[in-house]
Every structure is written in structure tokens, then in C-alpha cells.
């Protein structure tokens, strides 16, 4: 079925809402009344509902199957959290309602902040960043402000070569120059290279831990000390926090700032690409520089400090990440998740995530090839050595998984591994589900190696679409519908 665009389905004179026609005068419009039509199509409610139901049916989802995207943490999204986020006292509360009318919401933010700081062992948290990359920016701006407060000028940021693209992008966005630190053959930070590159002009070292190869950085405490000794700050990318939450406190590792992807570790739904939320926990050294707004408690209850007027003692906010107070809807979901799991459940979830990934690694490492020695953390990394001479690429293999009812794993990331395949089953999968997945991958791998490559050729075949021409799309971009 080819579902048309709403612009092709709609027609003038039709409408999916019933609103009265009112006549308004021009008196208070300053001559700015719209002259032409907008061009929006008209559709009745039944047509709109069917259109979007049909479109949804062309999507894969975690509710319908295992979603083994390494570094994305596609775990179960409890519906309780959706229900809680829709409580009118949260979902229908205006961000500029008086503090007296907002106590419940402020209490929720306060409670979530307590969970985040307690779990991470860090003294402070900036709640307002709206996604992981936004959290990185927040952390780097706090570092920048701290460096400036010390009267120093440090304009370099170091990142490992295996880093997520957001790390260098954010550092550049925050006005730093970026330099890469090499990886060892064991897939971890090369301490010698780090030592060479650290210096009085380095503001921060950004490290994902567990790292993007799915490994825990064994020398992390040494790394933190090296960075601190050089006068820099240690930024930890919390993308992989799901492996260690409830068991390891980043604060104990010497981390100065770490963003937490609530949509990964704490299961707010990915929603087809957002919204996320990326609160940043901060060390004692950075806490004072947290951005506005600040949440404080006094005798009248909780209140927000939203401007530089009336700051509490010592606060030196570097600025503001966005209007209002952050992703409240995601906060409610995350707290609902945390309360449900409890400290014991969060720890168990981390352990199960790691257990599942190692189970996948152990079960597949003989038919596929793993570039690094295990154990891994919550994701299992393979390279494409084992596909050599088969004519099958990582891409082919991943796309063929679609025909078996699975979303592909993360491919070609991290960049340090050739033809990388990064598999993260998460703690939400049953053993039976993981076993089926392993069985399918094993079967496919053996076929590929045996030269039975038909299924890989131009896969997928059973999806709503065959492979799409991405080159044509970017060569001559068609970014909106045009009549005719």
C-alpha cells in the first residue's frame, strides 16, 4: 500500500475539527492580517486517523521487536510513565504559573534531581538540557565558565578517536578546538597519547564510559587524575550509563560533568527521534556554574531562580540552555521509571543489560569476529573480518536482518573498528528473545560464510520499502511537497 501525503489526500472545504466561524475586525491587527491562503489541505477526522495509523504501520518499534541498536539503548517503555506524564498537575501546568501553583511540579524536579545526584554520586545537577548533545554543551559551558573564573584561557578539548560525533561537534559548538586521543589495540584510551596531548591549554577531556566499543575504561581513575593534574576537567559522556547505573558512581571515578540521557537509561520513549532529555550532573568544582534556572527551597516551599537577580551565595550561572525549565514531561516519565525500579531494580537492570550483551558476544564470537577481548559491558561489538571474501558487507548483513523481523544493529560505529556492528540487546529482552535473535544471526552468518549470499543481495525484500536511493535524495533535495 502506498500511503499518499496529506496534501494529496486533502481538499478544500473539509475539516477535522468543528470551530465556529467568527468575524474579527482589523482594528488591532496593525495592517498585518494575512492576505493569501496558507495552502493547508482539509481532511475530516476519520481520514486523518486512518492516515496516521497506516503510516505508523510502516514503522518498526521496540514494542514489536528486539531493537539491537548499540549505543541507543532501546529498552521497554512502561506505559505507567505515559500515564503519569499526563496527570494534569504535570502535563497541563504552565511554565510561568506562580510558584504557589507549581509546588507539585517543582517537587518532582527536586526529587528527580535527588535520584540523579545520588545515583551518580555527584553534588549537583543541571536539569534543563533537552537532549544528550545539549547536555554535553551544558557541561562544556560550565567547564568554560569555570576555566574563565580561574582567570585561565584553555581552548582545547580532547576526545578519543572512538567518540560519538556529538563530542567533537559539541566542543566546537562551545568554541573549543578539538583534538583526538588514540585508542589502544584493546579498544581503550591510549594513556601515553593522552599524556602527550594534555597541557595547560586543555580545558577538558571528554570520554564515554563504558566506551563506544562497549568496554569499561579500566584506567578511568588514572585518566581523571591525569586530566585534573593538568588543570583540566573530566567530562564523561553518559550515553552508556545504562551498564553501570546502581553499581558504579561516576562521582567516585573523578568525573566533573556527565549528561544522562533520560531516554536511554531511564526509558523515556524515543518517539521516532525525540524528544529526549539530558540533565547534567556536576562535581563540586563545577556546581557553581550550573545554568539558570536554579531550584531552591525556602520557608515558602520550592521556587525557581530564573534570572541573575537574587542568586544564592556562590552561584555563578554561565547562562541559560533554553526557555523555561527543561523537559518536564520526560522528568515525570524518568522518575516514574526510577521509583518503579528502585535502587535494587536499577542495579539489576544494569547487570542484566551487561549479562545479555556478553551472552550475545559469547554466542556469536565464533561465527562472527569480535575485535576486542571481553567481557563487554552492555553492548557487544563485532567487526567485519569474518565477512572478508564473502562479498557480503556489514550493510548487507544488517539489512538482511530486516527480512528476519529484526531492526539492524548499529553499523560502522565506532569508526575505529572496520565494518563495526554494535549490538545492544538491553535488559528488556527475555532469554528466549535473545536466543531467537542469536539463532537468526548465526544462521545468517553461516550462510554468508558458506557463500549462500542470495538473501543479502539487495536486502531487505520484505519491508515496506526496498533500499532507498539516499544519493539522489541529497544530490537534489526534495524537502517538501509541491503541488502537481
Amino acid at each position, binding site marked *: 500500500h*502506498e500511503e499518499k501525503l496529506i*496534501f494529496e489526500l486533502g481538499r*478544500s472545504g473539509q475539516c477535522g*475539527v468543528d470551530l465556529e466561524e*467568527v468575524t474579527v475586525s482589523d482594528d488591532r491587527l496593525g*495592517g498585518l492580517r*494575512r492576505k493569501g491562503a*496558507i495552502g493547508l*489541505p482539509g481532511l475530516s477526522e476519520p481520514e486523518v486517523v486512518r492516515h496516521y495509523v497506516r503510516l*505508523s504501520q510502516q514503522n518498526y518499534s521496540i514494542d514489536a521487536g528486539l531493537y539491537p*541498536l548499540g549505543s541507543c539503548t532501546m529498552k*521497554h*517503555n512502561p506505559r*505507567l510513565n505515559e500515564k*503519569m506524564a499526563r496527570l*494534569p*498537575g504535570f502535563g497541563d*501546568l*504552565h511554565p*510561568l504559573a506562580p510558584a504557589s501553583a*507549581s509546588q507539585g511540579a517543582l*517537587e518532582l524536579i527536586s526529587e528527580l534531581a535527588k535520584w540523579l545526584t545520588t545515583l551518580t554520586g555527584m553534588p549537583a545537577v543541571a536539569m534543563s538540557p533537552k537532549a544528550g*548533545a545539549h547536555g554535553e554543551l551544558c557541561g562544556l559551558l560550565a567547564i568554560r565558565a569555570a576555566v574563565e573564573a580561574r582567570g585561565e584561557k584553555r581552548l582545547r578539548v580532547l576526545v578519543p578517536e572512538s567518540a560519538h560525533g*556529538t563530542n567533537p*561537534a559539541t566542543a566546537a559548538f562551545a568554541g573549543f578546538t*578539538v583534538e583526538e586521543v588514540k585508542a589502544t589495540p584493546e579498544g581503550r584510551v591510549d594513556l601515553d597519547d593522552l599524556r602527550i596531548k594534555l597541557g595547560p591549554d586543555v580545558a577538558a577531556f571528554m570520554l564515554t564510559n563504558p566506551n563506544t566499543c562497549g568496554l*569499561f575504561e579500566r584506567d*578511568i581513575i588514572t585518566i581523571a587524575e591525569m586530566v585534573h593534574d593538568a588543570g583540566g576537567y573530566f567530562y564523561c559522556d553518559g550515553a552508556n550509563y545504562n551498564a553501570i547505573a546502581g553499581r558504579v558512581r561516576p562521582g*567516585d571515578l573523578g568525573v566533573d560533568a556527565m549528561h544522562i540521557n533520560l531516554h536511554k537509561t531511564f526509558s523515556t*520513549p524515543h518517539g*521516532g*527521534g525525540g524528544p529526549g532529555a539530558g540533565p547534567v550532573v556536576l562535581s563540586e568544582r563545577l556546581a557553581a556554574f550550573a545554568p539558570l534556572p536554579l531550584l531552591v527551597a525556602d520557608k515558602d516551599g520550592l521556587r525557581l531562580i530564573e534570572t541573575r*537577580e537574587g542568586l544564592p551565595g556562590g552561584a555563578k550561572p554561565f*547562562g*541559560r*540552555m*533554553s*526557555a*523555561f*525549565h527543561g523537559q518536564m*514531561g520526560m522528568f515525570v516519565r524518568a522518575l516514574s521509571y526510577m*521509583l518503579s525500579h*528502585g535502587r*535494587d531494580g536499577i*542495579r539489576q537492570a544494569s547487570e542484566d543489560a551487561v*549479562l545479555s550483551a556478553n551472552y550475545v558476544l*559469547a554466542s556469536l564470537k565464533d561465527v562472527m569476529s569480535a575485535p576486542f577481548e571481553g*567481557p563487554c559491558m552492555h553492548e557487544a561489538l563485532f567487526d567485519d573480518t569474518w565477512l572478508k571474501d564473502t562479498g557480503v558487507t556489514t550493510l548487507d548483513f544488517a539489512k538482511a536482518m530486516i527480512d528476519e523481523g529484526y*531492526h539492524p544493529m548499529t553499523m560502522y560505529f565506532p569508526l575505529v573498528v572496520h565494518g563495526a556492528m554494535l549490538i545492544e540487546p538491553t535488559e528488556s*529482552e*527475555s532469554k528466549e528473545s535473545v536466543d531467537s535473535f542469536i539463532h537468526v544471526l548465526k544462521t545468517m552468518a553461516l550462510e554468508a560464510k558458506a557463500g549462500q549470499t542470495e538473501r543479502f543481495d*539487495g536486502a*531487505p525484500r520484505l519491508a515496506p*520499502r*526496498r533500499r*532507498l*536511493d*539516499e544519493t539522489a535524495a541529497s544530490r537534489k*533535495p526534495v524537502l517538501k*511537497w509541491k503541488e502537481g
Partner: protein
Amino acid sequence: MRYLPLTKADRAAMLETIGVVSVDALFKDVPKAAEVPVSAFDLPDHQGELAVERKLAAMAAKSTASGAVPSFLGAGAYKHHVPAAVDHLIQRSEFLTSYTPYQPEISQGTLQVLFEFQTQVAMLTGMDVANASLYDGSTGTAEAVLMAQRVTKRGKAILSGGLHPQYAETVETVANLHGSVLRAPAIPGAEEDLASLVDDQTACVVVQTPDVFGLLRGLKNIAEAVHSKGALLIVVVTEVVSLGLLESPGAQGADIVVCEGQSLGNGLNFGGPYVGLFATREKYVRQMPGRLCGQTVDAEGRRGFVLTLSTREQHIRRDKATSNICTNSGLCALAFTIHLSLLGEGGFTRLAAINHQRATTLVDKLLTVPGVSLVTSTFFNEFTLRLPKPAAEVVEALAAKGILAGVPASRLAPADRDQRDLLIVAATETNTDEDIDAFVTALKEVL
């Protein structure tokens, strides 16, 4: 632990396959000193659904929902009626629990929605192209300024005094890193002379309309002035419903238009998640931040959609990317698109007219209250009043009477003594005549 499918027996079997005796062995790379027992966390253990629901419901009950009382709050977030179908559809598993559509063969649902969204945003704003959404209006504005700095290779950004102060602060936080930001002072109810501030170092001028006080800003003159200096005009719209009644920024010469899209499809949510709309001219498309969805064909020649122009993005370009953003506000954009599809041309323009009419009715009634005057001679669904006493006190007094009267200008700009008595008031289709009368009566009582 209802969310964790592994049983003890499963775990034992898996450990055996792996060849280790306990899960602790899998954490062997973690320094022993850094491992803590669960008792180290001063937090409760897991709880059942009923207990969690009770706790959160009790918390929520301590706030006053906008729908529960007469509410006239605006200043960047607006209470509108969202059709029930919207929330139903966005909760479908296939939308709610899917990832970013990097695998287009099994993500056409999300992708086609984004293509429709981009088209709608381009139509509303009167621009050539739009992206697949940003976090919200404020961060979108900051991105717009950075984009103008990139496009013009100039550093200076001039912000109108009518720009929402929290937007201005968001812009300053990042744009000062790559240039300088000049904020014109606010002159409530009037347009400042921005044109005279523009010079050949200027990357852009940012104007909000309706501005934070509700005043409608004509854009043609400033567009001309800005363009004559080779700079860009960035137009910010925090109430996207206004575009149903008012001329689009694109038609008035804007180069980048940023809107907060919360009004359509999305709840107030105490400030987030919201959805930033971002549109620009065709020629700047490769300098845009954020995801873009493009049309293409599949191997069988069928129309399909993909994320495109990703060479701008961080996962390819790393530190050379146009932005560090790798998330859009997908589900909020979906809600926006469904709501706008339900409205269509007729519904959207009627909705806008009703909003203006509600605000007009409210203004006329409020002006009967002694000592109250109107600061903004033009407005859409939001306006600013001057009160005979500090607005923050009046708001508190009315809140105690169960009326959320509006946003005191002093909350956004406490340093500006001239704004102390100003109250920013919004009305939408959700405000009944009874709401309005209750407000007027209560205001008389507290003044």
C-alpha cells in the same frame, strides 16, 4: 521487578554459556574501589505500579493545572484544546517506541510524517524549506543566530527588546561564543529602532512577532534595512496559531523563521518537551541545523523518504558539523502535524480568528477595571496591561482566588523597574465568557 524478563534460572544459564560464575566477573574491568553495594544509595527499593501512581498523583495534585481554573498565562506557552485523536495517535507503539529513522525501509511512517511536517512548517512560515524540528523555540532561535553567523561570516547579532527574555538569554549563552550579542532595550508596546543598529559587522537581527508583550511587529522595513547591509533577518514566533490570522514572516522578507510549535498538538508540560520549527530560504539549506527528511525512490521505483543532507551533521562531520544537535523533537512534531492536519486551512484560520476574538473580548472587559490600561495597541491573542500596582503582587492575589491571571513582566525582566506594573495576559479558544468574567470581577477586587 516487572520490567526485567530474566529469571534467576535464565541468568544462571546465560552465565554458564559465557563461562563465568557470576555477573560480577563481567564487571572485572571496573576498578574495585569504584564498585559500591546497592545499600550505598540512599534511595528506596522497587515499588509496584499502584504505589508509584499514588506518589506521583499526590505530587501532581499540589500544582494547579491550567484546565482546572480560569487561566490566562502565555508569554511563550499557550493552553489550546488538542483533539483527542492526537494523543491517541502519538501513543501508538510504532510512533512512540521507535528510534530515529536511520533505517528508512522500516521507518517510512516516521519519515513521511517528517516530510509532511516540513511542508506544513514551510507553508505556515512562508519559507522555502524547513527542518524536521529542533528542541524548542528558544534553542531554535539560538541555532538561527549561529547559522546567520556561519552564513554571513560575521559575529554581531542584534536582538529586539521584544524578544522573549529567556530566548534572548538562550541566544546569548551560545552566540557570544562565536561573536557578540547586542540586546536592544525593551520598550513595551512600541517598536524600537533596530535599523539604526545594523552595520556591516551585523550577522543578523532577531525580531519576535507578536513580541513578548503581544505587540504585532511589521517586518518589511527591518527586512529592507537588514538586507541592505548583507545581514539576515531572523523572525521568531512563539505563538504559532497567530500565523493563521497574520501575514507570514516569509512574505515580509524573513531569512530564517523560528517558531515554538507547542500550541499545536502539545500540552503545556511545565515548559517541555516542546517543538522548535525552523525554516529558511532554499539557498541556505546546507547551512541549516537539525535533521532533514527528503523524498527519494526505492530500488523498485516507489516513492519513499530518507533522512538527507546528513553531511551537515555531527555523526558524519564531527567538529565541522552545522550543529551538535542529533535529536529532533520527533513525537512533538508528530503531534503538531496531526493537529494541523485535523485543522487544515479552514480550521486553522478559524482557530486563529477565535483566539483574536477571545483576546479582544478580554481586553475590552479588563479595560473597564479602574486603573487598568492597555500597553499594546495591536495584538493577536496576548496583550500587556499596565496595572496600578506591581503585577507580581496582583498575580499572587488572584492565584489565591483561583485565577491564573497572566505573567508579570517583572518575572522575565526583574531588573527593569519600568516593567514592574506590567501584566502579560493571553486568551485562547479555551477561555469561556465565564472565565473572562471571573477574571474581571476578581481583578476589581484585588486592585
